[in-house]
Structure formats: C-alpha cells, structure tokens
C-alpha cells in the first residue's frame, strides 16, 4: 500500500505585513518591517510596546459591520485568512454536499482575550450587571474554527488546539495526519491570535521577555540571532493552509504549492519558559522520520526564533545537533523579525511563508544586518537582510516551540518540477 501524500493547495494570511498572503510575502521579501510602536487606546494607565498590528485589515469591509461586531478580533483575523486560503485553493465558497468528512483544525493561544477584557471592564470598572449576550460564543477558543466550518459547510472534525506558541503548527500537523490517513480528503488548518489587549500586554511585560523600543526603534525591535537582541515582539495575525489529498488535488487540476511530508512533536519536560535544545531536537528528528527524509534533503529552516537572548541560540544548537555536517549549508531565517510573534498563529504564518518560499524558490530573510549576527547563533547559513534566490530549495522545516515545552516541527517538500 502506498501512503497518501498531502498537498498544500491554498494559502491565506492576515498579518502585520499585509491583509493578504501575497501582500505579506512581497513585503517580507522586500525586507519591510510590519512592527511599530503600539499603545492600546483604552488603557487605564498608558503603556506602549513595539508590536505587530494588522493595520491594513479592515474587518468591516471584509465581514460587514453587523457581522464584524459579533466576532472577537482573533476570529476576524482567522476567518479572513481561512477564507483567503479556501479561495486560493479554488474551492467553492458555498457548502456543497460532499463535505461531510472535510474538516477544520485551528490554533490559538489566548483566543477571545479582547472579549474577556471588555467583559471584565464592563463588570469591574463600569459596574454593569449585564454582559453582551454573545460574550460566551465570541470569547470561546473554538469560535473561529466553528465559524469557518459553518461558512464552508465542513461536516467532519472541527478542533482547536491551544498549545501556546505551537498552537497553529500543531493544528496543521494534526490536520495533515487526518488527510494522510484518509480520514479527511480536505482540511483547512491554521491559527489566529489577537493578543494586543491591555491586560495581555501587561502580563507579557511582567514576564520581562518583550523587546523594548520607541517610535524610532520599534520597527527593528525584534532581532533574532543578532547581537543586542532584547526580546520578542507581540503581534496579531492569522494564517491558513488548505491541505488536500494529493491524488484528489491532481485530479481536479489544483495548483499544488508544496507537499506537507512530515510532522514531529515533543515536550521539553523541563521548564515552562526556558527551552531545551534536546527537546527541540526530538521534535526535529521526529519530523524527519515521519517524512522519511534525512538532513541532506533539506535546504531551509524557518526558525521559531523570537529574538530572545537564550532562545535563539538554543534553537541553533538543536539544529546543529540534528543536521550535523549539513547545518553549515542549511539556510535559516526568522520571519518574526518582520512581523513579530503572533503566538498561537505563529506556526501558521511560518508555514504559509515557507510554502510560498518553496513555490517561488526563494528563502525569506531575517531582517537585520549579517554583520550583527551573534557568534552564539553561528553554525547554520543565516539568510539575513535580503532573500536568498537562485539556490536549490528542495525541502524546508518550520519550527514552533511553545512556552510549556511543547515543540512542533512541520516538514515541507517542494513540488517536483513537472516532467
């Protein structure tokens, strides 16, 4: 029996780099930063942090004002990304009769945090006794997935994974398993996050992992792998892939961007916030084994690297441990330098950029200067400042490593040139 292959046939993204996947990919290749100084408008005490805001996303234009008002921002961003991926895959927007086994797998870390915050403000600050009637269904972490399933008529599994910063990578991995096993011919998978609420920002500040910055420096506040990196930058966004049985995709003449070939997971089981290169290496090896591929097969890794002093070098240590002699030639970049860390959506943004990179044969860059690379992060072929074009790009990994120690790695293979 031949195992089923899984095709990526649609890509969607709403990010600080643009309101669509092509816009964001172009901005990334142009090494533009989507990060700026952000101050929540309704903060009881002023606060401002560098952050990635989806400024070009207009929820009222996408959904109409009435519908937009019934959705938390994490759902707005996610539904928009999911529907873009669906259209991109050339699938009909309307529910059809043959979608009873098709499903959606979504990821989010804090889900409807903005609705929670609004509710607490109403109760504790404004002294109200009643909350808006949709508070529960807006705030729940599976709202976005269910809206997508309802809108597209997907009658199979509808699940949401909340695994901090690995949420969307795990949702894509689990969806991949469903397609590969034959349980679902088509899965919509991804994640979304809208963490820029006052309380969430305060909580992250308390953890002392956010990069500082002012209006002038915010755009370059996230500096993965570079000397002087000072922390991560929070971001909002949504990303989605359509995963499809390869034979089915070929049969309907769909454009196949890439193959999702493997998925590996692990847990550091050590510390909630300090990552472990051994734990990460287990997930990397698991992904390679799942894809039946070797280090020699890969030309690129989209790193999890968030720009923290310890985390980035630990990730490079994991890569050099797994890739050995191949590591020095392995292109590595961290797109969070351009759009920030979208937490539960991060794995979907990384996957979307990687799939587009494989399709176009280009490695997106880490924003910054090669001269600023930290020697502690040496050992791989960093792609810094400008995209790498013209070199072989056969297969790529995307890393997503979460607080809590959950690690998820996805292995993508470029679609072979048509013969």
């Amino acid at each position: 029996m031949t195992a089923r292959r899984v095709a990526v046939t649609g890509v969607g993204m709403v990010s600080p780099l643009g309101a669509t996947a092509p816009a964001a990919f172009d901005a990334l290749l142009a090494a533009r930063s989507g990060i700026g100084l952000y101050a929540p408008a309704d903060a009881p005490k002023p606060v401002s942090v560098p952050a990635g805001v989806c400024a070009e996303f207009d929820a009222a234009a996408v959904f109409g004002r009435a519908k937009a008002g019934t959705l938390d921002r994490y759902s707005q961003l996610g539904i928009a990304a999911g529907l873009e991926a669906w259209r991109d895959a050339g699938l009909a927007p309307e529910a059809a009769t043959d979608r009873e086994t098709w499903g959606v797998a979504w990821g989010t870390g804090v889900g409807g945090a903005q609705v929670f915050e609004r509710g607490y403000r109403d109760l504790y600050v404004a002294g109200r006794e009643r909350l808006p009637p949709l508070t529960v269904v807006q705030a729940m972490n599976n709202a976005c997935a269910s809206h997508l399933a309802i809108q597209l008529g997907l009658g199979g599994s509808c699940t949401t994974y909340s695994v901090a910063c690995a949420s969307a990578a795990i949702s894509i991995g689990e969806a991949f398993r469903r397609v590969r096993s034959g349980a679902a011919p088509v899965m919509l998978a991804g994640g979304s996050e809208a963490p820029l609420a006052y309380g969430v920002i305060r909580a992250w500040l308390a953890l002392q992992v956010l990069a500082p910055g002012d209006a002038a420096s915010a755009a370059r506040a996230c500096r993965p792998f570079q000397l002087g990196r000072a922390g991560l930058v929070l971001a909002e966004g949504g990303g989605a892939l359509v995963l499809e049985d390869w034979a089915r995709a070929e049969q309907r003449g769909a454009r196949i961007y890439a193959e999702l070939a493997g998925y590996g997971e692990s847990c550091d089981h050590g510390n909630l916030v300090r990552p472990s290169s051994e734990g990460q290496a287990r997930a990397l090896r698991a992904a390679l084994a799942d894809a039946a591929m070797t280090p020699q097969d890969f030309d690129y890794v989209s790193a999890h690297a968030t720009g923290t002093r310890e985390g980035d070098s630990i990730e490079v240590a994991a890569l050099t441990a797994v890739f050995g002699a191949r590591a020095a030639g392995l292109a590595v970049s961290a797109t969070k330098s351009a759009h920030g860390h979208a937490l539960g959506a991060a794995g979907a943004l990384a996957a979307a950029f990687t799939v587009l990179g494989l399709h176009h044969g280009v490695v997106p860059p880490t924003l910054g200067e090669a001269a600023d690379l930290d020697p502690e992060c040496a050992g791989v072929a960093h792609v810094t400042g400008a995209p790498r074009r013209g070199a072989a790009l056969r297969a790529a990994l995307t890393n997503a490593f979460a607080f809590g120690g959950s690690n998820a790695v996805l292995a993508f293979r470029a679609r072979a040139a048509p013969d």
Partner: protein
Amino acid sequence: MLDAAPAYRFVQERLGVDLKTADAATELSSLGVDSLSMLELVFEIEEKFGVKVDEDTPPPKRCGELVALIEQLAAAKP
C-alpha cells in the same frame, strides 16, 4: 425613554444600515444582519439608552420592524 435620532445613528454605526432611507420590507439578513448580530444590537440599545425591550417582542427581521421597535421605545413612558 429613548431619543429616536441618536438611536438611528447608533444602528447605522453598528450595522452600517441607514434605517431612514432603507426600504421597510428589506430583510435585515440581506444586509448582513443575522440573528446573533440582532441579539447583540438589542442589548446594546438597552444598555446605551437605558431602555428595556419586552422579552416577548420578536426580534426584528425587516428594516421596518426595527424602525417600529425604536419608535415604540421612543414613545414609551420613562
């Protein structure tokens, strides 16, 4: 009691629908207003204008019914 003019402005802001010019027979659903958005809207009108919509009142389905609801709240004694 509710002042009708700001209520109409509020509906326009929330739903993007100008009830003054809308055809009374137009179904709200055709304007992107579903039952969930109507539930939320009625709650917001109650909170913002300090009125109470009778629980037995069926949710408006057409523009004219929403106008009637607002006029009824405007006419009600405080």
